[in-house]
């Protein structure tokens, strides 16, 4: 049965390469929601996250020829999404404007005072590699092996990045642990 599924997926890839959007939908459609979640976790902005997913899907559409036979589609696509998020965040003017947006404080004044917002800010300021590993593992519940596949790094490196991310976040994580 697995052989059939793999064959079927190869058919879909082949047909999507030929420009068949239905085939592309069958391949990528189910991954749009997790891709959006990853983009939200990385960018913290709905519009930017939707744009990132859109652009990542376009890249995937164009890069289907590079997808190796038998390779898992989810880590391949989420890696493209992660790279797209990285590119988005490189637009420094955007980040500054968005992070300091007064609109955010008007929308949720209570949240700004909470420890959650402090933690959110701290996550935002993490080293990008550590933030990605943290988001994939803790926010998206992906196993370390899949995080390793998405980030194209050994599992040991993933563990190390997550450990360091948690170390960096310890000041923001600690208060609730004390209070609870």
């Amino acid at each position, binding site marked *: 049965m697995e052989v059939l599924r793999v064959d079927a997926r190869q058919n879909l890839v*082949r047909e999507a390469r030929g420009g068949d959007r239905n085939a592309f939908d069958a391949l990528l*459609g189910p991954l749009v*929601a997790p891709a959006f979640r990853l983009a939200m976790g990385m960018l913290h902005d709905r519009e930017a996250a*939707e744009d990132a997913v859109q652009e990542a*899907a376009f890249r995937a559409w164009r890069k289907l020829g590079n997808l190796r036979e038998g390779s898992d589609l989810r880590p391949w696509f989420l890696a493209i999404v992660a790279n797209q998020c990285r590119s988005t965040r490189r637009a420094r003017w955007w980040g500054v404007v968005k992070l300091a947006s007064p609109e955010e404080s008007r929308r949720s004044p209570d949240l700004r005072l909470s420890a959650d917002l402090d933690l959110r800010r701290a*996550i935002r300021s993490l080293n990008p590699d550590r933030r990605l590993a943290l988001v994939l593992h*803790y926010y998206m519940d992906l196993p370390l092996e899949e995080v390793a596949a998405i980030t194209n790094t050994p599992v040991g490196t993933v563990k190390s990045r997550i450990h360091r991310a*948690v170390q960096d976040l310890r000041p923001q994580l*600690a208060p609730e642990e004390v209070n609870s």
Partner: protein
Amino acid sequence: VDDESIRRRVKRALGADEVDPALRSRVITSMPYDNEEARPRWQWAMGGLAAVLAVALVAGLIVMRPHQQSSHPAGQATVTLPITTQLDFKCSLPVTAYNNSRAIISIPDGATTIEGLQPAPNKSLNMSTYAGGKWLPVTFRWLSPDGKSYAYTTNTTGVPGQGSSTAVFVHDIAGGKDRQVWTGDGNSSMTGWAQGGIYFTKQNYGAGSSYGSEVWVVDPGNPAAAHRVGPNPPVTNNVGPPSMYFSQISGGAIWGMGYSPPVPMPQGGSYSGPDRITRMDLKDGTVTTWYTAPEGRQVAVMGLDGQGHPILNVSTIPAKPAAPAPGATPDMSTYVYPPPPRVLLLTGPDQVVEIADGSNQALRPTSVFGDAHGIWITAPGSLWLYSKGALKKVADVPADHFQAPTPPPGAPTAPSGAYKIPSPPPGYPTGPYLQVVAPCT
């Protein structure tokens, strides 16, 4: 701090923003019709270089005529397309272009209001439709017959301990409310409305069941009667090549493109393009082949005419030069521009009406749309209409009126002097790619 505490805190801090149900449809339908770049490695590189060439030509036009750009600060622009054929009727034609820009072209005078212009480059084509004075994030065929609502599907995966699940929703345009009309396992994609209700294709991935792409219908007024359409066993993709995909629905039938087993290529590898058009009757599920492409050609359903006949694009399978040795530079001097495709109207089994014979270099269609006036065809830099047995170019679409396509992200750029890129054949079109997305009303 233990693992679960961290997990809980991170999730709470980052929130749980739900994905917009329409995002999937927006993403998938925004993919350009032509996916030439999605070829393996070296072939893809050559496609990219060809795209660079085309864009360079377009960019040249833009540089030469910057004074003709007229855009407003609010992301809107008003332009007039140069009319080449004076039509004897009046209507407004909705089109979309790159960078999510949308426009209404006034026929016959060519006055065009463009909106959604964005300063950022590299935005992909965002196909949508226009109904009741509104731009909608779905394709025209997903609209209900009365135009008051549209259908879409959602798919949910990755829930621990659960397989994939899918659902069909109907969105009320005026009220903005969504109503779930069907749910099941697997994944699905929307085909459109037709007699009997909403048709969608459903892919099953569940353990213990074979993979298959099935056609289903659900009547929003009687959701409990949702059922699979077609022969038993269903026409599925689990038999390997030959395989089939159903994409367009009209005239009591759903139309699919069939694929034969891959053909070995002289330079290695294999190739399989869609080579036949298949019709599945919605009443009795009969599947018949209505068109088979000649050898060396591939065929695709580009859209439907006003009566629901499929409009076919029959193109030459591109001759691919030999693959370079590993690490070697592709020899672009051997790149061959494919000839323009034939455009055919499929009116019956093995019965076609020729719309374009493939001899006009400028007519390389990017979209087709049939309505009461005829069949609108867009090509780079031009808009055409097939009506009463004649095909006429209606207007030019200058490069400086719409934002032009740019190379896909990550496309290779040619180092200066590294490649000898052949010139395109005389008349090879350049210019914006428009897409007609709704009838001219």
